[in-house]
């Protein structure tokens, strides 16, 4: 086929359907969140003292951390899906929630009695927390990768990592409805690790599943 023939073929139907990108992301995230929530309820269950927990600052602190990370992750994933768009200030927005959390955790640890410090970090559930977040992120991970496949990422590992981070932080919000821990140092270690697992998986899978 000559290039001119190809051009005529492509030019036959130039018009675009509007808003396909926001629609694809909305569908993916809504479906992914619903499935992640069901998965959390089925495998872990909502914490029985949820009503009381909503009066605690740390309950909202966890959601705020994960929510702001998810927001930054969504912007980053969208940007990385558009050729020639740079991450720019989003890098800072991705770092800020983690740094803020680590700062709070450091203050709590310094203020605590030395004997309590290890319990503040390990809590009761340190063995399972990060893996639970990673497990619950699976439907979200599939959803964010699918959404990103509707765009045109040019840095595949980075874009995959961003999709994984978005899935991991949304999963963390879901998991926070189960998690009984209330120490900032615990969250600073195990939640961050929980988000890091799907992020790393995304970086590894990206070059394979995001090619176009």
């Amino acid at each position, binding site marked *: *086929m*000559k*290039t*001119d*023939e*190809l*051009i*005529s*073929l*492509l*030019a*036959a*139907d*130039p*018009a*675009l*359907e509007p808003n*396909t*990108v926001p629609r694809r992301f909305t569908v993916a995230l809504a479906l992914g969140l619903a499935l992640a929530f069901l998965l959390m309820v089925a495998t872990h269950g909502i914490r029985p003292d949820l009503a009381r927990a909503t009066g605690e600052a740390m309950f909202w602190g966890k959601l705020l951390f994960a929510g702001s990370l998810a927001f930054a992750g969504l912007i980053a994933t969208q940007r990385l*899906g*558009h*050729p*020639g*768009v740079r991450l720019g200030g989003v890098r800072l927005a991705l770092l800020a929630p983690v740094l803020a959390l680590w700062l709070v955790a450091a203050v709590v640890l310094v203020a605590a009695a030395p004997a309590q410090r290890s319990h503040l970090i390990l809590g009761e559930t340190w063995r399972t927390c990060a893996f639970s977040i990673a497990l619950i992120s699976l439907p979200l991970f599939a959803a964010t990768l699918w959404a990103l496949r509707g*765009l*045109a990422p*040019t840095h595949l590992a980075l874009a995959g990592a961003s999709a994984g981070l978005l899935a991991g932080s949304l999963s963390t919000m879901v998991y926070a409805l189960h998690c009984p821990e209330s120490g900032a140092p615990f969250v600073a270690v195990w939640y961050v690790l929980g988000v890091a697992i799907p992020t790393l998986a995304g970086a590894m899978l990206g070059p394979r599943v995001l*090619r*176009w």
Partner: protein
Amino acid sequence: MERTKARDTRFADSERQLRELLVKGLGGDAPAYHGFLKALSAHLRAYFRKRLFQRLDDIEDLVQETLLAVHNQRHTYQTEQPLTAWVHAIARYKLVDLLRAREAREALTDPLDDELEVFAASDTDAADARRDLDKLLAELPEHHRLPIMHIKLEGLSVAEAAQRTGMSESAVKVGVHRGLKALAARIRDSL
């Protein structure tokens, strides 16, 4: 200094003209979109020629592949964004993809990230593509192939193709859309 200025002006003109044609095209203006693709193909040819002088026979393949990618991904162009940055990112991605597939790093003699250069020159002489898209097209399943064939072979518009085949216009559009995506996937897998 003077030469740089002249080049920058020429570049800014190309950017403006091409962008105008693309935006009109995205709104449904087929002749404008045709003009956009035609002008873009000349720029792409010059861009790839500069970077692939050791593999001249890959150039037209890459031009075609990039045109197809630009078309398939045109929903990712944000109209407030410089067109150059968008086109360059796609052209570079396709180039790197090809080189990586061939494991031919030694062909990379130029830094790849000079954004001005996509529109800095144009080269209108199309050579023959080595890869025959018709052959890849023929391998596609019928529901992907047929809508494309009607428009391509007979030069029909979407409306005419719909009339001729008894399909609805939107069915023809969806068929072409999916067929072109499938074609791009075939190219990718054949690298």
